[in-house]
């Protein structure tokens, strides 16, 4: 039986790593990720988690050590954010191209400058194309559950890709939430120890990280593209088996009050919960509005997303990050491209909100919708509109 506990979300993430019996944790401190690795260091120090904790000298070395330990066949976890994630950038591509099932929690934080320790999604957007499976959590329970499923997905022999579990820094990581904590035995039964297909073993020598000459590079990358695309149904399969075992179900795209919605917000991460409350208020005022939350960002759930927004005429896409000099934010760009490529005509408004820890209120979502509808009626484009700027 699961226990109901009140726990800081960072600690819930660390507890998930403990429940997963990780073999190696290599991490470097950076706000707002620190509580996750501090708690893991404690769990190791107190003998609750039998793992090697490598207190590396940088995030670059954190990911490098993770690559080494995963290549040695160990279940491997790290956590980072912001500048630290950016410092890992080079290594992230190598982890995925070597098909190493590393799990990383990212406590999403803005990027310098100006230096800001507070939340937005600029850090993860810079790592969008690194070949990792990436998804977003909205609350503490999801952090625990989705960290656990990350190991299951990553290590599946049909997948063998690293997984990045995104959680909003402070807004999620530093709040205490009620969490259902599964029993160790129940997790052990669902998530047995990692059995590598290939690893650094003197009894069976292999060469990893070889030179890819022009005659083989394209094929190597195609295999990787195919791997992440093929991971999609397996992610769903493991979320379904998690639901069966633990009773909580996750979908790549989740919809709220969209059945008859004329307009839907599109969002990722913890903002979605604020939008849902705003939607309730707007619904009470007679507006036909809903939310579509993208949980799985990579591989992108094209069919599910298209289906989820099929009925809405207007989409209000929230980007919690910036792209400089681009026609729209990264999320809105993808949404527009995938609708266009399928010949679907919709009005897609795009707002950049919640940057560098700025709160976004329910009223602001109402204003966004009003602005989008006004622009639509006037036949104007509404894109990269920054929310709440003090003029």
């Amino acid at each position, binding site marked *: 039986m699961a226990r109901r506990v009140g726990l800081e979300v960072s600690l819930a993430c660390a507890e998930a790593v403990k429940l997963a019996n990780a073999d190696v944790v*290599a991490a470097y401190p950076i706000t707002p990720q620190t509580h996750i690795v501090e708690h893991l260091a404690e769990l190791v120090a107190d003998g609750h988690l*039998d793992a090697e904790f490598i207190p590396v000298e940088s995030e670059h*070395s954190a990911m490098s050590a*993770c690559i080494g330990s995963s290549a040695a*066949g160990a279940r491997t976890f790290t956590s980072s954010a912001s500048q630290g994630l950016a410092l890992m950038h080079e290594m992230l591509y190598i982890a995925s191209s*070597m098909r190493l099932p590393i799990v990383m929690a990212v406590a999403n934080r803005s990027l310098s400058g100006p230096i800001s320790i507070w939340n937005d999604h600029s850090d993860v957007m810079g790592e969008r194309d690194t070949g990792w499976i990436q998804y977003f959590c909205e609350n503490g329970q999801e952090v625990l559950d989705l960290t656990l499923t990350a190991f299951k997905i990553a290590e599946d022999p049909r997948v063998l890709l690293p997984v990045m579990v995104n959680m909003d820094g402070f807004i999620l990581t530093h709040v205490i939430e009620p969490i259902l904590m599964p029993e160790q035995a129940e997790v052990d039964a669902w998530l047995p120890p990692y059995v590598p297909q290939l690893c650094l073993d003197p009894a069976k020598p292999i060469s990893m990280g070889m030179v890819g000459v022009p005659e083989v590079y394209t094929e190597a990358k195609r295999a990787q593209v195919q791997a992440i695309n093929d991971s999609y149904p397996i992610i769903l399969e493991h979320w379904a088996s998690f639901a069966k075992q633990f009773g909580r179900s996750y979908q790549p795209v989740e919809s709220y009050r969209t059945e008859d919605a004329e307009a839907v917000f599109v969002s990722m991460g913890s903002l979605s919960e604020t939008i849902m409350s705003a939607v309730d208020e707007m619904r009470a005022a007679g507006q036909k509005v809903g939310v579509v939350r993208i949980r799985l960002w990579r591989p992108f759930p094209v069919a599910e997303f298209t289906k989820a927004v099929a009925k809405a005429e207007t989409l209000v896409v929230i980007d919690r990050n910036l792209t400089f000099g681009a026609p729209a934010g990264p999320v809105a760009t993808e949404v527009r491209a995938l609708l266009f490529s399928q010949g679907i005509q919709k009005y897609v408004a795009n707002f950049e909100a919640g940057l560098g820890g700025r709160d976004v209120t329910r009223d602001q979502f109402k204003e966004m919708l009003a602005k989008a509808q006004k622009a639509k009626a006037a036949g104007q484009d509404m894109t990269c509109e920054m929310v709440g700027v003090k003029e």
Partner: protein
Amino acid sequence: MISAAEAIKNYEKITPKNIPLAEPFSRGHRACQGCGEVLALRLVAKAVGQNLIAVSATGCMEIISSPYPQTAWNVPWIHVAFENAAAVASGVEAGRKALIRKGRIADAGAKIVAFAGDGGTADIGMQALSGALERGHDFTYVCLDNEAYMNTGIQRSSSTPFGASTTTSPSGSKSKGQMTWKKNMPMIAAAHNVPYVATASPAWHLDLMNKIRKAIATPGPAYVHIYSPCPTGWRCGPETSIETARLVVQTRIFPLYEVIDGKFVLTRDIKNPKPVEEYLKMQRRFRHLKPEDIEVIQKRVDADWERLLGFVKATNPEAAEKAE
């Protein structure tokens, strides 16, 4: 943990009669003719044997040994990037340690050895190396020092010696080539208080292999800095590698020593050093140097040798006395 001195007391010494025949690093790789670095690498691999788990930094040795689908490695080998061989080795060591403790893999005494060039060690990889040495992972780090970025076309590194002309420290009317002195990597490693540090030259192949045997026998981190002639980059004949590797020691430019538990041991005392000029004249990277430049280098080499003897005296007075 036992001391390095204790651990290497009964190490398996290599002699001309028992040189291992196995080649964990096989022939057929794509190194240049006369490459002193690949010879050093082969000797290290021979000394470790089939229980080697190799971690390579990006560089000549990685490129020439692993053009997919061919590999020169008969042992498990991983290459990740340029600056992080020590960090990757940390992870391999920690991963195996955890799995052995949990009974998921057998402890068959595998030895983890990280290889990097001088750029991957003294420049871009210095931070990762320092971290791994400080954390005390049980591994050996081998720096194959050919004194410049040879893989990218002979650019200077912090390990390039004073006066050497490289493509980014060219000699010219206003330059003598490299204007700074070679970074002393083995001393930096020793400053981490790791149990075992050594320098080696492929001209003394048994000494080189035995230092590797000691390094892998030592629990915790060991650092071995190997002088690795590069005929291509140094502008000398491929047949001169061993001669160069011998002269660099005989001129006291690259002294052979060990630091065991902090105690300095001179493994080859050079009583009657040859003038540095003999060494410099062999390589066209130094050909622009004038007699007064060579004099500056000679003085520096003399001073560095005295300084090293000072370390021997300070940390290992019995050995120093015996030498005198």
